[in-house]
């Protein structure tokens, strides 16, 4: 019998039979991992198995290749904090949907797990959440091998007036070097380089640029899947006047 214990964030739950569920959990040391939770539809476990909840999990299986079964203990529930807050709810859905689509099963990302938990801990702090979310998406691209290089211009090497990103290479392009390619380049707001105030408009622009790389580089590398609708709904909430 193979057994391990870890902590993780619940991403999704699907009913399996009448009383059990298959939970997808983003764990610290074992990556995104699925397993059966027996009695998962019970009154006791249902509130614990909500997306975003932080749980202590023990996974057991006879062989490593088996789906296995989780035993779940709650660490922290986030659903109550998110449910009444439109932005928090949209943010939580975007994070869990993106993790489901972009992370490979059983591929550990311990540092990124920590970043994800820090982001989830900020749910409900509407003043800093959008900026934190934008940084998390940049970290997601970096973690999955599609990090953007925004320190210097890909064409001239200059590091001032960097206001574009190449949609192909993910490298910054200076205003003076954009030339005839200007209409094909993506905007690079200062907030993506850790500068400026990070206004809502800047963050919305940044999410548009990041969305291109998530959809056309990261997700396309994993198959023909669309960008999760939950991310679009988050941007709708962020850009609503």
């Amino acid at each position, binding site marked *: 019998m193979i057994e391990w214990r870890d902590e993780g964030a619940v991403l999704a739950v699907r009913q399996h039979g009448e009383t059990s569920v298959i939970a997808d959990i983003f764990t610290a040391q074992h990556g995104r991992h699925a397993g059966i939770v027996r009695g998962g539809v019970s009154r006791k476990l249902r509130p614990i198995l909500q997306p975003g909840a932080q749980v202590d999990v023990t996974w057991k299986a006879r062989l490593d290749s088996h789906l296995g079964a989780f035993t779940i203990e709650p660490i922290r529930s986030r659903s109550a904090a998110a449910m009444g807050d439109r932005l928090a709810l949209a943010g939580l*859905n975007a994070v869990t949907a993106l993790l489901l689509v972009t992370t490979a099963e059983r591929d550990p990302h311990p540092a990124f797990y920590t970043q994800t938990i820090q982001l989830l801990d900020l749910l409900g702090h509407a003043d800093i959440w959008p900026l934190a979310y934008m940084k998390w998406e940049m970290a997601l691209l970096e973690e999955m091998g599609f990090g953007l290089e925004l320190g210097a211009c890909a064409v001239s090497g200059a590091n001032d007036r960097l206001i574009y990103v190449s949609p192909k290479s993910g490298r910054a392009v200076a205003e003076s070097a954009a030339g005839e390619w200007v209409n094909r380049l993506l905007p690079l707001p200062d907030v993506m380089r850790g500068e400026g105030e990070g206004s809502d408009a800047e963050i919305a622009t940044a999410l548009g640029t990041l969305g291109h790389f998530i959809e056309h580089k990261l997700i396309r590398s994993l198959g023909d899947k669309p960008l999760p609708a939950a991310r679009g709904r988050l941007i709708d909430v962020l850009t609503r006047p």
Partner: protein
Amino acid sequence: MSEETGDIQVLIDLMARLPGLGPRSARRAVLQLIKKRGQLLIPLADAMQTVGATARECLNCGNIGTTDICKICENDKRANGQICVVEDVADLWAMERSGVFHGRYHVLGGTLSALDAIGPEELRIPRLIDRMTAENVSEVILAMSATIDGQTTAHYIADQLPNLKVTSLAQGVPVGGELDYLDDGTITAALNARRAL
């Protein structure tokens, strides 16, 4: 299974697919039906045949009934300007059992779910929006599950009805509940929704 019991086995297999029944309990139920053929089996078969022929979804609200427009939608006394939006017919029946709501209903047929690729088009949200003007609605009560999917759906519907009074059910300590047995999410929701006595 012998040839003589083939039909019975078909019945057992079908019964075993019902929620709450497994092969063993289905076998017991079928045996009981056969023993009480006159009192149970024949009337049940007749009732199932009738329901099979007449059961349909209400074209207006999605409730299940035996007519194109269900009795709740047909009842003028229930046109009080309130529509209670529920996920499923089972939720509608639960509300009706309570006897406290006297308006009309709208059954969505599920919740938005990224995992199951259920978007607004797969639910009866466009029909709900149509009903707002057709039925002169003054308040929409969102009776969705206190789950992430349920509340995501509730927020989405509220966004689609910007000029209407949209309310949702309260969340908190259930009747007869003891704090010691509640999860921290429920306690947080209850504390957030506290009221003066």
